[in-house]
């Protein structure tokens, strides 16, 4: 049976009910991965080894671990015990999470030989709910990028809709795997759009939860005040199912919030009647700095993406939502410059621990002293993008510059947060339940087109990053295909802890567009499977 075609809910229903065994589901998924994925990412890769039409989502496949877990699920069912809500559901994990006994690489040479001695909380929760991890998927090195091309493990993942294009990033392996039916669920992280942007590029659902909703314990840190683990899935209800497993406070992460976790599947079809959904002109254009002239350039986002967003608004209006136009979000365009400062300071701080002493890579030369060992190990262990982030972090947080840069950026962050507070204020002029925006300014770009231009690359996250500064949740939904057959994503942004509401709106949109032609189209990478 083609178990890869089934939703996570359907797999769990069948496994829980004894119609299918977790082992047979797992075996079917592993075989499917074998057919569509091609060689996993490797440090020793030589160009020419890219297999045309393959997805290359994985760094490490874990078939034995998966089958062991599947057998445990089947044993529980045989013994009459509750195997959990994710019983037998195969899933992948972005290789930025520690999973006990597996290489946990952050897609970096400096951690290539690191075997995690413990398991990150969201992964542990999925496994204790009966989920079956089938492998760890590729990403930008330490999550630093928007295309997944900066991974030290090449080939980097490809977009299943057109394997000459990037899947987005940094959770590019997660989005590509889900789009190519290599497991209905993947655990990603979003620091500036790293779940939502690749979800949009690959035509899948991606949810960045509220900061503090999902534990970061066991997540290899990038921007500690911005990082959010969250689900990628093929439909909204599967994202809700996964949130039921991973959300909630964790004594091992003091930044998780003590806020009740709803049943995200309950009332998922409550509809949108009476909800106020906003549109903001600031989310229909991008303003960036031209790399050659240093001058700001303003461009509208791609027409087909605007059109898909406005059509979604019409569909939601048709189901009884009230559309509120011209909601001001005046600091949107400052999200990226603010991020260039805050995330770099946090990255530099977080990357200082990699020193070639306790674990990870140490340069093999004979070193005259400790200092030269640090330098050589970090020089050879880190790729270009981590180095760029560390250097910027060092500069903008240096004592003589930090007021000009870091402190100012933190204050602008307050202003970005105020944009959201004002839009969602229940006594304010807009009183929004959610803001509807495009997910990205463009669809997926070709491999090699943007990589290297660190400014332009970062700006592909311009419509995502404000929610990271604000800490608020965001949901990206597939909303059609452009004229090149590439997926278009729309985004719903809501107030703190409104994931349930965003998923309800997303479900309503899914139902309203269920008969649209594009929903029956499948990624090219599945053609031979």
């Amino acid at each position, binding site marked *: 049976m083609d178990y890869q075609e089934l939703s996570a809910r359907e797999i769990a229903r069948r496994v829980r009910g004894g119609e299918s065994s977790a082992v047979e589901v797992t075996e079917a998924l592993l075989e499917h991965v074998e057919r569509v994925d091609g060689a996993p990412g490797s440090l020793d890769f030589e160009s020419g080894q890219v297999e045309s039409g393959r997805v290359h989502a994985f760094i490490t496949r874990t078939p034995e671990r998966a089958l062991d877990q599947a057998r445990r699920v089947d044993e529980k069912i045989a013994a009459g015990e509750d195997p959990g809500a994710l019983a037998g559901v195969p899933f992948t994990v972005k290789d930025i999470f520690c999973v006990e006994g597996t290489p946990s690489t952050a897609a970096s040479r400096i951690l290539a030989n690191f075997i995690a001695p413990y398991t990150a909380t969201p992964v542990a929760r999925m496994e204790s709910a009966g989920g079956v991890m089938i492998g760890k998927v590729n990403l930008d090195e330490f999550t630093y990028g928007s295309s997944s091309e900066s991974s030290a493990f090449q080939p980097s993942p490809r977009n299943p809709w057109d394997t000459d294009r990037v899947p987005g990033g940094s959770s590019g392996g997660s989005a590509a795997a889900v789009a190519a039916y290599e497991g209905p669920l993947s655990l990603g992280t979003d620091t500036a759009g790293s779940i939502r942007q690749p979800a949009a590029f690959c035509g899948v659902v991606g949810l960045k939860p509220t900061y*503090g909703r999902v534990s970061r314990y066991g997540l290899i840190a990038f921007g500690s005040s911005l990082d959010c683990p969250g689900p990628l899935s093929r439909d909204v209800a599967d994202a809700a199912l996964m949130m039921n497993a991973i959300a909630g406070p964790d004594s091992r992460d003091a*930044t998780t919030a003590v806020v009740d976790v709803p049943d995200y599947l309950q009332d998922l079809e409550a509809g949108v009647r009476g909800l106020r959904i906003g549109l903001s002109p600031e989310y229909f254009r991008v303003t960036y700095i031209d790399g050659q002239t240093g001058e700001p350039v303003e461009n509208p986002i791609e027409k087909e993406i605007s059109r898909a967003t406005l059509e979604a608004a019409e569909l939601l209006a048709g189901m009884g939502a009230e559309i509120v136009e011209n909601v001001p979000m005046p600091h949107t365009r*400052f999200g990226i410059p603010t991020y*260039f400062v805050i995330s770099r300071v946090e990255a530099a701080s977080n990357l200082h621990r990699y020193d070639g002493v*306790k674990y990870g890579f140490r340069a093999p030369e004979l070193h005259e002293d400790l200092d030269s*060992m*640090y330098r050589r190990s970090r020089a050879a262990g880190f790729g270009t993008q981590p180095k760029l982030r560390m250097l910027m972090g060092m500069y903008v947080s240096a004592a003589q510059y930090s007021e000009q840069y870091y402190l100012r950026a933190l204050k602008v962050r307050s202003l970005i947060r105020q944009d959201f507070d004002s839009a969602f204020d229940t006594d304010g002029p807009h009183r929004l339940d959610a803001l509807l925006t495009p997910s990205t300014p463009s669809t997926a770009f070709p491999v090699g087109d943007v990589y290297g231009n660190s400014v332009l690359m970062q700006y592909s996250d311009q419509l995502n990053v404000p929610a990271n500064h604000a800490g608020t949740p965001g949901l990206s939904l597939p909303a059609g295909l452009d004229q090149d057959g590439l997926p278009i994503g729309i985004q719903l942004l809501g107030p703190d802890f409104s994931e349930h509401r965003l998923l309800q709106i997303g479900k309503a949109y899914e139902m309203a567009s269920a008969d649209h032609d594009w929903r029956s189209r499948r990624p090219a990478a599945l053609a031979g499977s």
Partner: protein
Amino acid sequence: MKEEINAELFDHLVGLAALALSQEEAEYLRRELNNQLAAIHTLESIPLPEGIEPAARGVPYPPERSQPLREDVVEGCEQVAEILAQAPEFEDGYIVVPEIPHEDL
């Protein structure tokens, strides 16, 4: 475009970051840093309202949402050997590193 980070300042930052770079890598990184700084300078066009506080995080943490303090209890770790085995050089219970720079007294 203004070259805010000149070669000398760049070398200082490389030292702070405990890195060593090839010439080619250094040129690329310095150029990208200066390009990013051009974007960062757009923040100076924003009037900062009087009394605006810097935000270390987006979501507020009122006491009722914060995790309660817990007892400071020692929890054992069963994988000591596995963790130590990951050190690049380990001998007789010690993590081995090259000579630590010091001055003889």
